């Protein structure tokens, strides 16, 4: 049953069970959020998505408010806008003024909201946290909880996407803090280094450690491809800058995995530019490898294989190579080498 409601004077149809936030977004109305993510359960923690609803008292968080028949919603009244500015100002009183060097710049949802509402960072004498920066030994996750806005997206991502329960909120009033397990290291708390928490963190509080300082969101060319490791077939975006693969980011449209990746897919790409990569053909002469041109190497292969046709030849294809490549390997073996001895390590 569709539900009819009015958003900013416009008639909108929504699905039963949708939230006001979802209905508004589906109809093209932008409501800012921080703690909300479409993949995660709604919690209504940041209250940036507040709206005015006729016959309801005060301002209500749109992300946890289900649509109902005849509802009349206003998303950008002066009262709503003032509330959002106030929320953002409060967040900034405990946030470093660090966008200049922050890795998240350009990909930070707090920055976007603060910009949209033109809230200023202000010097003040009050307390700001100074938690240790990069305080966790996990080789892949960089933590800076001075930038944490306690949205709990990391907590929910770890629990709901990865199925771990590494992160939690330690309740200590002003000192509420995101902690791993009983305030231990991430690995001790059962972390699998999948990076989901960093991928879902809206700020620079949780980041991919290996790619810090190597380029920001807007400097990256993103190329969607399929993981080279296991048979799940996760897709993600290779982030390229100056001809170098800098990092992997989740691509929410990925058919199999959505934003989820494992430690190998997300962080296992360093080998691409490793100094050990073979870059020249090598021919063994008197027991040692000597660099050769492609012509030398391929002529030698053509000559040697020309004398070894039929069942004296065997091709070991690769389960890591593409379909197109494996097709060529078997076609070559069967047509040029005249044997069906082509196989790959399917059994290992």
């Amino acid at each position: 049953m569709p539900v009819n409601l009015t958003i900013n004077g416009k008639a909108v149809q929504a699905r039963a069970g949708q939230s006001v936030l979802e209905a508004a977004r589906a109809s093209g109305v932008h409501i800012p959020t921080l703690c909300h993510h479409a993949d995660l359960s709604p919690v209504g923690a940041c209250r940036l998505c507040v709206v005015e609803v006729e016959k309801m008292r005060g301002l209500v968080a749109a992300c946890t408010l289900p649509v109902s028949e005849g509802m009349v919603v206003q998303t950008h009244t002066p009262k709503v806008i003032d509330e959002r500015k106030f929320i953002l100002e409060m967040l900034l009183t405990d946030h470093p003024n660090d966008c200049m060097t922050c890795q998240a710049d350009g990909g930070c949802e707090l920055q976007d909201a603060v910009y949209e509402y033109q809230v200023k960072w202000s010097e003040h004498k009050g307390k700001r946290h100074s938690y240790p920066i990069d305080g966790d030994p996990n080789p892949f996750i960089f933590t800076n909880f001075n930038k944490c806005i306690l949205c709990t997206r990391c907590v929910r991502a770890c629990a709901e996407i990865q199925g771990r329960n590494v992160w939690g909120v330690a309740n200590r009033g002003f000192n509420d803090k995101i902690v791993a397990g009983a305030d231990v290291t991430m690995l001790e708390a059962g972390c699998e280094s999948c990076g989901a928490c960093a991928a879902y963190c809206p700020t620079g509080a949780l980041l991919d450690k290996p790619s810090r300082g190597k380029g920001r969101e807007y400097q990256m060319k993103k190329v969607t491809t399929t993981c080279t490791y296991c048979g799940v077939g996760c897709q993600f975006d290779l982030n390229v800058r100056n001809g170098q693969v800098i990092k992997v980011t989740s691509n929410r449209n990925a058919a199999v995995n959505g934003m989820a990746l494992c430690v190998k897919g997300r962080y296992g790409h360093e080998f691409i530019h490793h100094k050990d990569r073979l870059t020249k053909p090598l021919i063994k002469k008197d027991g040692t490898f000597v660099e050769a041109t492609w012509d030398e190497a391929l002529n030698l292969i053509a000559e040697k294989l020309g004398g070894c046709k039929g069942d004296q030849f065997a091709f070991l294809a690769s389960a890591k190579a593409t379909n197109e490549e494996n097709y060529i390997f078997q076609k070559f073996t069967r047509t040029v080498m005249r044997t069906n001895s082509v196989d790959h390590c399917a059994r290992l």
Partner: protein
Amino acid sequence: MTNNIADIDNCKTMLIIGSNTTEQHPVIGTRIRRAVRNGAKLIVADPRAIDVANMATLYIRQRPGTDIALLNGLAQIILQEGLEDKEFIAQRTEGFDAWLKVVETYTPARVSEITGIAVDDLFTAARLYAGNKPSAIFYAMGITQHTTGHNNVLAIANLALLTGNLGKPGAGVNPLRGQNNVQGSCDVGALPNYFTGYQRVIDDAAREKFQKAWGVELSPKVGLTVGEMIKGANAGQVRAMWIVGENVAMSDPDSHHVVAAMNKLDFLVVQELFMTETAELADVVLPAASFAEKDGTFTNTERRIQRVRKAIEPIGDCRVDWEIVCDVARRMVSSSKFQVSGSEPETMEPETWNYDSAEEIMNEIASLTPQYGGVTYARIDAKGLQWPIPNKEHPGTPILHTQQFTRGKGMFSAVEHQEPAESPDAAFPFTLTTGRILQHYHTGAMTRRVAGLEQLAPEERVELNPDDAAQMNVGDGEWLRVSSRRGEVQARAWVTDRVGRGVVFMTFHYAEALTNALTNTAVDPIAKIPELKVCAVKVEKLERETQESMFVMVGGK
């Protein structure tokens, strides 16, 4: 997989047997965890209490190599309790009566004796799987890497047929394919007995079709499997090999024997990213482009064909694998000097090997492969497609066998328990089982060159049961010598109840602890898969200076 990955959300019961899912297929693992959180039941049957066993409704530990007894035993209980799907058996299967005769002999007491699993647990597992449907089975190398691998798979299929858990959402039999493109490599004919799409090389009509398409006469003789290639090289029958991206000197059983075979070849070409243990043995090493440097497609374990896209230019002088082989092919067909004396003259034109792009190759695959018939790069651009995709209008096939099986009716196959090729004895009293860990991949050529992964998992660890460790007076992190009839390896102990008594586990990621020096080359007679999951070893404490293990504990265990 008969069912798609997203379908895991529809399972009411999942049976994981012989798959360390959360470490080897991690994102499928997370999906399974999510299903459990949403109320699905999970049975894990594995010789090791792997990570996912921690959240199982029931964890059962079978002795390595006793899967058939276990699966037959579950079937026997299901029948005894009347939980079978009689309608499904009558309408969609055959061979039930003959199978019944064998299965009836697998009484709970006998199965418990063979597998080491308590009778009560057998009943709980059978009742969950058959009573709380739909139920799906997930398995991987823990089932296939046995001398009974082929029969293990049949025993799994029997259980699904018996309970009607096939061809519907939330059910299914789901082999999880190991490497990223194992499925695709098989689909496009990188196999000694099949052309693309599992068209048999011994089938005259199939050969005729490919002869016409390729313009040359084709051999009707089935070729050699990997294991047979290595044996052939040792025996001098195989004289030249070309190996792309496989490190057989480390990944294959009985490594010493593999190295000896490679050394006997007259000519070995290895095409690789790195100077691997196998590349070292080559006459010519060719630098290949990585996945980030090329276009193409991979086919995942749920048969989804997805795009691989070039993000950067090949490093240095590296070239894309298919281009290299096409280049050699052109050289060979254009020069009669390479003709073997006595063979008929080459009829191929060098131009046959001029492909402009990977896309052009895929179009040729689609034209010759019924399952890939509807594939174009445009169609798979966004979400891929799951084969079979017989034509350009077909939307792909997320769930197989909804109406009927490939062969018409599902066949019950009577299979019997059989001990592994090598069982522990007085000289080699432990069972070694092998596998992989989350942080590394295969022989480590790629992952061991990622600093963070190396930091998380820097060295081999032999999983050793606390009781065995106590008896040998071995502490966590102390050095062990593990030896078999074929070789020996030194590595530190990880004293953990992940493994049962008498069983040790090692990976094959680390060249400095070459686990495959120990393993057995005995293969399954049909699938030709080596028995990497069971061999007999001796485990001894080694007096060696023991520093603190560098291993960071992962997963809280």
